[in-house]
């Protein structure tokens, strides 16, 4: 036993005497480092040189871009036909001003990605995805009905917070047939075929893929063979981006092992011990979803870094709060709910009846998509109660809603 006899006052007095500790770096040194940080720089549009691109891929990319970008930026509509419909409506029916306006933007965008692609002019990030266009986004998740003769390609792209953002591409099956023949590609096959050609900067992300080292398959496991200086362990952000993107990309595999060229496990600097295989979860990550907004105004639904939950209910209830200054809640102020589970079905009951017509539609879609993605991350289907409308924006509230296939659909823009 100790004979010390500290009282509250003495503790408080000592706490008040803590000395100042100064940063010894100069102001110019700190500023210089900030100037180097690409998150504070404007996006420089890359000069695209024709290079070697198979004609079929180039045509498909252009077609996808001109047809899908309107849909991706604006609506929770099915992939091909709805996008075509929208463009057509916008061009032909001047009475539908919003559509016309959107289509005008779409045409501008197409030009931005093709004709102006030769320019090396520095563009303000806002010009790529303006506030207005971002504001018109009304879909943050992909549902089974959105897959019309297409193949889903999940991938984690790195946003300007340095974290993985789960993205869903839908590649037309005609393209898949052209690239893979009769074979049904796995997530690994899709990655190997397309990852190096995705125009990440053009889509608003950091240039991150393809992974360094070599990827290979062994049964239901993946192996990433890394050599000295791979750079995936230089800091906590790089470690997290590496893990997050792998998890968001390789669906259908059990685990990924990190090996040196001699087959021994890689020892990551930040961990300090031989790496263990990372379990791959194929989307069952026990995450909840928040809003992430890039500097250029693009909005995505994303987990809070890699935070997972033991309890589904806690995951949902936590969504009401902003977790940090990177992510925001998708649950509007004043909306509250309880969750109960019945035979694998999650029933989310709003405490006050919600009249969706009286709310901002984009906010509501974001909320429903975020909640449904969270349920999907726990392998659950969800039904909503206490909503005035029985049907709204394609959602039938009288029954459990479909489980989303993935978040954040984007057009597969290839270099």
């Amino acid at each position: 036993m100790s004979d010390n006899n500290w009282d509250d006052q003495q503790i408080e007095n000592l706490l008040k005497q803590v000395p100042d500790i100064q940063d010894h770096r100069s102001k110019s040194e700190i500023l210089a480092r900030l100037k180097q940080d690409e998150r504070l720089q404007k996006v420089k549009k890359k000069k695209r040189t024709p290079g070697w691109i198979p004609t079929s891929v180039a045509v498909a990319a252009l077609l996808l871009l001109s047809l899908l970008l309107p849909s991706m930026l604006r609506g929770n509509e099915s992939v091909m036909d709805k996008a075509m419909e929208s463009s057509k409506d916008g061009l032909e029916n001047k009475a539908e001003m919003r559509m016309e306006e959107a289509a005008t933007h779409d045409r501008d965008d197409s030009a931005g990605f093709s004709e102006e692609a030769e320019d090396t002019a520095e563009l303000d990030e806002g010009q790529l995805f303006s506030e207005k266009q971002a504001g018109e986004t009304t879909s943050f998740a992909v549902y089974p009905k959105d897959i019309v003769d297409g193949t889903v390609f999940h991938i984690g792209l790195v946003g300007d917070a340095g974290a993985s953002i789960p993205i869903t591409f839908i590649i037309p099956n005609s393209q898949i047939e052209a690239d893979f023949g009769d074979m049904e590609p796995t997530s690994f096959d899709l990655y190997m075929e397309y990852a190096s050609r995705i125009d990440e900067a053009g889509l608003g992300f950091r240039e991150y893929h393809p992974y360094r080292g070599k990827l290979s398959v062994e049964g239901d496991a993946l192996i990433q063979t890394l050599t000295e200086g791979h750079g995936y362990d230089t800091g906590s952000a790089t470690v997290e981006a590496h893990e997050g993107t792998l998890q968001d990309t390789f669906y259908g595999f059990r685990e990924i092992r990190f090996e040196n060229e001699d087959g021994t496990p890689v020892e990551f600097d930040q961990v300090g011990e031989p790496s263990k295989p990372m379990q791959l979860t194929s989307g069952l990550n026990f995450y909840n979803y928040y809003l992430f907004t890039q500097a250029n105004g693009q909005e995505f639904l994303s987990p809070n870094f890699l935070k997972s939950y033991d309890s589904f209910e806690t995951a949902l209830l936590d969504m009401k709060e902003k977790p940090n200054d990177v992510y925001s809640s998708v649950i509007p102020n004043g909306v509250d709910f309880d969750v109960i589970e019945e035979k694998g079905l999650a029933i989310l009951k709003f405490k006050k009846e919600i009249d969706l017509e009286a709310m901002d539609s984009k906010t509501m879609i974001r909320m429903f998509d975020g909640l449904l993605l969270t349920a999907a991350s726990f392998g659950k289907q969800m039904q909503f109660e206490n909503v005035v409308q029985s049907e709204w924006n394609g959602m039938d509230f009288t029954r459990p809603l479909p489980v989303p296939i993935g978040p954040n659909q984007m057009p597969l823009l290839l270099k």
Partner: protein
Amino acid sequence: MDDSVFHRLYEQYHQDVFKFLIYLTRNRDHAEDLSHEVYVRVLRAYAGFEGKSSEKTWLFSIAKNVAIDHFRKNAVRKKHLYDKFDWEKSELVSTGILPDEMAVMSEEMKDLLKQLDQCTGDQKMVIVMRYFHDLSIAETADVLGWTEGKVKTTQHRAIKALQKKMNALPKEGGKLNVRQ
């Protein structure tokens, strides 16, 4: 980026934010990295600062979030992903090298800081803000997004926890030279 905003924020808050981060992490390299991260987030969000809170508490809340993310990432990484990290209940312990300034502190001060590391994250955060930075109850509540009542309760519990831990130490590390 807007250099003028940086210059003003640097002059007004830099050393305060740095002190906040270094006392939380007890590691100069980490504090430098995290202060860089604070600037990045602040400069990117500056145009959207709505003035609902004071600039000072806004900056501290960003610094707090950056620090929590740092501890959370460390915890997640050590446990190979997917474990829950609740900063309010976890200890925010940094295992880095102690800055020189801490090495030359009195033994009792070193003991106190060591015991502070053993407190829960919410207690440590409140102590750092209230005593090291002299933030008011209202300012601390604003930074943490808590009610003032929660700040008061947490502070009370933190002092009691520190008192208990300090009294449990061997006497040599005890209370000599406490200036009143």
